[in-house]
């Protein structure tokens, strides 16, 4: 089973990397970019027997730091 875990910064948490990317896009001449937030995509290949609860626990215990980050689990196939 292919799993994608999307980790993103919570609203209100300053994202210096996103801001730098935004600045670089503007430097390249791209207009109309209002905001950039950088996150992380983690792809897992897990056995079909792995439960939703276990996936959730993986995110809570390691893959995301819930002080600053949200996560979303996507089952690809």
């Amino acid at each position, binding site marked *: 089973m292919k799993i994608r875990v999307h980790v993103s910064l919570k609203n209100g*948490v*300053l994202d*210096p*990397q996103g801001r*730098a990317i935004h600045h670089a896009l503007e430097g390249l001449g791209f207009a109309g970019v209002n905001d950039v937030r950088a996150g992380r995509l983690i792809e897992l290949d897990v056995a079909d027997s792995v439960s939703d609860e276990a996936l959730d626990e993986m995110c809570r215990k390691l*893959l995301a*730091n819930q*002080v*600053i980050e949200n996560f979303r689990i996507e089952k690809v196939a």
Partner: protein
Amino acid sequence: MPFTAAVITFPGSNCDRDMAVAIEQITGGTVHRVWHGDAELPSGLDFIALPGGFSYGDYLRSGAMAARSPVMQSVVAAANRGTAVLGVCNGFQVLTEAGLLPGALMRNAGIRFVCRDVPLVVENSQSLFTARYTAGQRITIPVAHHDGNFFADADTLDRLEGEGRVAFRYAEPVNGSQRNIAGVLNAAGNVLGMMPHPERMIEPAHGGSDGRALFESVLAGLNVAA
């Protein structure tokens, strides 16, 4: 019993020797060097230090992998029993990731790695780690970090301030930290995390010795023979 300390080394730690030397020189005690894969700590420890560096290459998040390494379960257990624990720089990141301290350390607001001496204000001079300083004292300690931008939500910050758990504050903006917080204590007061490196400021050859009082405070506070 002589003062007994442990310095934990993770793959990628690079301030572990400096930390061990500082503890040895200032406390005159015994310092055990402990590898991250060790499941058990030496017995009879008064003090555990998590050093600076780039444990596990800062993979995933700074300190995230180290916080889940075997030895950290023993460190968390020791901290919960009241053993004094100091985390400096990457060690601070590890302590937040391990849940021993609140908040998180994010990328510096200015994006750049910051490596320089910074002025600090001692906010709490009543703690185990700071009793040899005076409240409001300005000291100079070096920082060297990319991820030192302390973040916690407003309620947590208010609670930390209200409970006297902000040990050190930057006297000027350094990395975007909320309320210029440079070091925080846990609720029980036996765990301190800080981004500046006191072990790099312990003798005149370092450019100053403002870091000594931190280790002297721990030695005096634990009331064990040197």
